[in-house]
């Protein structure tokens, strides 16, 4: 299938700052795509390139096969939702939503019908004649989404739209966004620095760091097979074990040898094995294989999950398990921490990130 949106070696620099190194990225029609990365990594810049607010210093942007690199934003037909909503304060919610249609010289009755449809879609029926300052953050946010959708955008672009909301409303709005996106089928790019948000909403995620693309993939791919040190460290929690591949299928850490069936891509002298806390198994059985001896330092219950910190000969390890599973352990207990040979991700230690 041909890509709907393609960024082809797009570059941006602000003076001496290279905000975006040549970036190549493509999206399918109807996808809910997330740009995820730490502050300053170039997410807003990338969105600006797609919307036409930011001028590319090189490369091309293709939308539905058409080169739009030089097209001004007002011709691109893209619905943008800004972090602070950027609603027009002197217009009612309905006027805000109808603004793009009015510019397109639609008939008044037509506009009214469409505006009511959209207000219903974002669950703001009957609130059309309120001014933005008379609405809550969540309501303003929904007006902004309705306004962006009104122009039947070729892409819906959202720049950290949930970051001004409290935790509970944020989750509600995230689900709302998913629902709206499924209902309308609009191809969506969602920018966030919050991984939970990205993982909860996206079909695919692109991870950016320092203006470079680190990895693109489904949430599962990214969580289970991070392809760079940066991604492995940035996404979720990990135990990083520095070691060498002393023999085929053997990972050696500080003289201790573990079976490792993970594929080692490329050649490197030293490697890092990233183990997710939930991949670690804690038992009191000293005979358990592929494990290391340790002493429990701390046990914390966080809801259904138990966090355990264990001091071992190869460093302190963090393990999770469900509160109900396994033998109970307490601080001070002598335990074995083990994992499957196929667990974790093996990355060369000299890679950047």
């Amino acid at each position, binding site marked *: 299938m041909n890509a709907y949106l393609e960024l082809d070696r797009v570059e941006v620099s602000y003076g001496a700052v290279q905000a975006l190194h040549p970036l190549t990225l493509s999206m399918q029609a109807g996808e809910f795509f997330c740009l995820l990365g730490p502050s300053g990594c170039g997410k807003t810049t990338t969105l600006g390139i797609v919307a036409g607010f930011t001028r590319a210093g090189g490369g091309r942007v293709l939308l539905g096969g058409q080169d739009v690199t030089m097209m001004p*934003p*007002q011709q691109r037909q893209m619905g*943008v939702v*800004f972090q*602070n909503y*950027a609603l027009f304060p002197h217009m009612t919610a309905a006027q805000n939503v109808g603004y793009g249609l009015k*510019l397109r010289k639609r008939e008044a009755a037509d506009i009214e019908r469409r505006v009511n449809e959209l207000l219903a879609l974002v669950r703001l029926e009957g609130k059309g004649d309120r001014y933005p300052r008379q609405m809550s953050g969540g309501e303003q946010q929904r007006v902004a989404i309705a306004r962006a959708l009104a122009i039947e955008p070729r892409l819906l672009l959202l720049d950290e739209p949930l970051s001004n909301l409290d935790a509970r409303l944020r989750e509600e709005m995230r689900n709302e966004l998913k629902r709206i996106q499924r209902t309308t089928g609009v191809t969506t790019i969602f920018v966030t620095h919050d991984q939970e948000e990205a993982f909860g909403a996206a079909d695919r995620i692109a991870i950016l760091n320092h203006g470079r693309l680190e990895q693109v993939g489904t949430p599962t791919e990214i969580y289970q097979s991070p392809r760079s040190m940066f991604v492995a460290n940035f996404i979720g929690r990990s135990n990083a074990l520095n070691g060498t591949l002393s023999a085929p299928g053997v990972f050696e850490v500080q003289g201790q040898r573990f079976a490792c069936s993970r594929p080692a891509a490329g050649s490197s002298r030293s490697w890092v094995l990233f183990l997710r806390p939930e991949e670690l198994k804690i038992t009191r059985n000293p005979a358990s294989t592929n494990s290391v001896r340790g002493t429990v330092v701390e046990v914390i219950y966080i809801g259904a999950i138990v966090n355990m910190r264990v001091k071992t000969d190869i460093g302190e390890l963090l393990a999770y398990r469900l509160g109900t599973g396994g033998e109970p352990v307490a601080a001070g207990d002598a335990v074995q921490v083990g994992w499957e040979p196929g667990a974790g991700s093996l990355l060369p230690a000299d890679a950047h990130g």
Partner: protein
Amino acid sequence: MIGSAFWRTARRVFAIAFACFMLMPLTVILVVSFTNEGYVRFPPASFGLRWYKAALENSYFTGGFVFSLEVATFVAIVSGVLGIAAALVLARYRFRGREAIVSLLMMPIALPHIVLAIALLQVVATISVPSSPYGLVAGHLLITLPYVLRLTMASLAGIDRQIETASASLGASPWQTLRLVILPMIAPGAVAGILFAFLISFDEVTISLFTALPDRTTLPAEIFGFASHGSDPIVTAVSGVMILFAAILVIVVERFFGVLRLIANEDRPIE
């Protein structure tokens, strides 16, 4: 708290005292203007519309009123257009010398009017045009423009640039964004500036006196001339007309734009 009621009362007393202080001279003039006697005294011995009638029949005053109205209207419109345009450019673009231009445009506020007036007379004499209305209007523009500029720039500073970006993304050309978003958003500030411009021009004395020609002078200049010859109650009646005129203007504009709330920096409730 015990203190809060006390402070609330204190604030109210202060507000009332301050209002009385501000309104006292106006009230005295208004009361005196309704005297039926031939001299100025407060309180008047008898009341009547005698001096209002006299003022309306006096061609110096009616002529001055019409001329003042013409000048103030012209000055308000021109300083409105120039002030808004300058504010849009100065608030939106960063360029070398921008600060200097803003300071230069604001300077006439700080200059004594008499200095401006003398300078203007030199200029109109040099380029040999009549000082009234040309020098007069130019002088008024110099002192009214800063108000429009400052109030409009303050309104513009409150507009988030992303609002313009949002407008563009929805399909608006820069011109449409200006017309449909920016101008409506700065309207209260700009209208307040234009109202100030009108009232300042309408009330201005010094420049008007210096640039006056016998048949082309403003109402305040006429009043000044009359008042310096003696205390004829006709002057109080003319003042009364000016006060009423300004009050009506402020009230009408306020009803439509809520500019006083903007100046007072209060939130404007939306019905």
